């Protein structure tokens, strides 16, 4: 793998949910871990997020959803990424997401999701591991 290249992550807040404490904490933690981080700001539509991910040529999209709209928003972003040539981009995230829903979303091509109380280092380790095993192919 290329040790020089930094992992590029788009941290995104989709939908109408304004609770950005987690998004900001995880964005800061990713930056401190050496990732290149772009934060979308609030109230983004799936279109806006997919476009930003493609334009910014990111490796990972990390979405924070606490509004309960995860079953709509994760699949929409996944579909749009795939439609715009971003099949290789990892879509992960966190928020208030019941475990059953996490499993259902995994079947739709969404990566691991992190619930309340997850340490930021777990998300960082997950992304690093994904990048080393899959991300470097692109």
């Amino acid at each position, binding site marked *: 793998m290329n040790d020089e290249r930094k992992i590029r992550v788009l941290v995104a807040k989709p939908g109408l949910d304004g*609770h*950005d404490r987690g998004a900001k904490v995880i964005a*800061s933690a990713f930056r401190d871990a050496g990732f290149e981080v772009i934060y979308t*700001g609030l109230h983004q539509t799936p279109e806006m997020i997919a476009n930003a991910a493609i334009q910014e040529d990111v490796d990972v999209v990390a979405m924070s959803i606490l509004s309960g*709209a995860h079953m709509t928003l994760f699949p929409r972003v996944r579909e749009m990424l795939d439609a715009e040539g971003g099949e290789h981009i990892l879509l992960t995230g966190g928020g208030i997401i019941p475990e059953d829903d996490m499993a259902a979303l995994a079947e739709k091509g969404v990566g691991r999701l992190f619930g309340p109380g997850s340490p930021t280092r777990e998300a960082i380790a997950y992304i690093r591991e994904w990048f080393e095993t899959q991300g470097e192919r692109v």
Partner: protein
Amino acid sequence: MSDSVPPSEVDPFRDFQASCRYDYLLPYLVIPVPNPSLIMSTTEKDLTGTADLASRLAEKEAEVARLRDQLERWRAKYESTSTRDIGFTTISGHEIAPLYTPLDRPASGHALDEIGVPGEFPFTRGPYPTMYRTRLWTMRQFAGFASAEETNQRYHYLLDHGQTGLSVAFDFPTLMGYDSDHPRSLGEVGVCGVAISSLQDMERLFDGIPLDQVSVSMTINGPAIILFCFYVAAAERQGVPAEKLRGTVQNDILKEYQAQHAWVFPPEPALRAIVDMFEWCSEHTPKYNPISISGYHIREAGATAVQELAFTLRNGFEYVERGIARGLDVDSFAPRLSFFFDIHNDFFEEIAKLRAARRIWARRMRDVYGAKNPDSWRLRTHCQTAGVTLTAQQPENNIVRVAYQAMAAALGGTQSLHTNSMDETLALPTEKSVRIALRTQQILAYESGVANTIDPLAGSYFVETLTDQLEADAEALFDEIEAQGGVVPGIEAGWFQQQIANSAMVQQTEIESGRSIVVGVNEFTEGGADVAIDTLRIGPEVEANQRARMARLREERDAAEVERTLAALHEAAADGSNLVPRILDCARAWCTLHEIRDAMEQVFGSYKEPVFF
């Protein structure tokens, strides 16, 4: 004790030297004491004798000397014993001394009557003279999900179980001013609150609930003025006149920009709409609170107790200044300003926070804004236990967290309280978990005895010291906000947002490093995984039904009336006349939430936040 030891907050003998000035004796010597036996047995005549004064002073000096001896002995023992290797601080980061003594509080320079009595300036001990002896706090559980009918059923359930007020949780589309059938609402209709897009929905929400008898709190901010008008119009259709309405609309837009982020318009027109409501409500709804100035969301977004206290009160002053700038008499609207605080884990800091808030507010209202009516000085507050402290791990532990927090709210003198349900980190709460949360308040109110006497922690050396400290810290933060140019410039520069995000990051780091222990999350993690919590799910049919209902409403209403009332609102937005009567007309004509929002947005524009992390 050595003279070279500087007084400091970490020193167990904090402020010891300062206390040796005998300042604290002055109140005893110069004011007539109603119960002289508190000080010493004496007679009226003795009080005039200089020789007696000198001997009493000498006695007091001896008393202090004895206390100093006791404390020195204790200090020697304390210092020769190891203590647990953690930082002893409040959540706001204040060092806490191991022991507080009678020498602490007098050293802070306050007179005895700074604490005062409940129901009197400066209200440290409570906003009302009799507090829970007359009426317990209102037990008000925040609830709302799916459609108006389903939420209506939950309200009937809660009222049947002894809840004494209602509190509406709206879904995200409603919070942002979108109708259920707007493209931006996709996937979010009724999911984390109830969907209310028109007067029709509002009427269904309160079906069978007499709005002249039940007080209703509505958590809505960006489009608050619209939902308020839906509510007034719904009451009207029940035959309840506006002057009989009791309750509160949150309507605190400043903290939305700072923390919760459900805004619609930019700050200036948003503040104008709020002052329009102050003006209209002071004439038409004398028992209704047109705003709930909220620290809750600031705290939940990451702020410390001190930041919550200072930002919230400063936002309150901003609203007062805007009302005065409009030409309103401060006493015409200030008595109806209400507050909402978060009750977090740090038991004593939270109690002190509520006590300090009342004192700061009273002083400012009287001395800076010239309010003459004591009701304008009286800070009344709702409280909610801290959602952010709930854990998804071992969720039953949350019942215990909530109980401690609820007790702090009662000891702090709250007027109403929401207790969180144990499963709220997983999904919307089920009926069972909501019932346990309500029962927690009832056990507190009827079994624990905390409601028997008013402000029972007053006079605690620690709580009084902490109250003084929080007040001083808030005053320092007010100065920092002024240095930013005030509240609105601070928001536009992202200053508040950055302060809050920084605090959130500090707390996360503390937890991840293990310096801050969260039971069941980073310590004591064994077990609990087997707990099955039923979660309440909102199916896609809710959104489909709402869409169908909106389509019907658009069919059935008088299109010309819709157009006429929206045009009149647009005009009022542009010419500066009060928006409330125009929005009420729109509501009655079945204009939808987003149509009304849009008519104003054409004039006001929309808000774009400064993005950073």
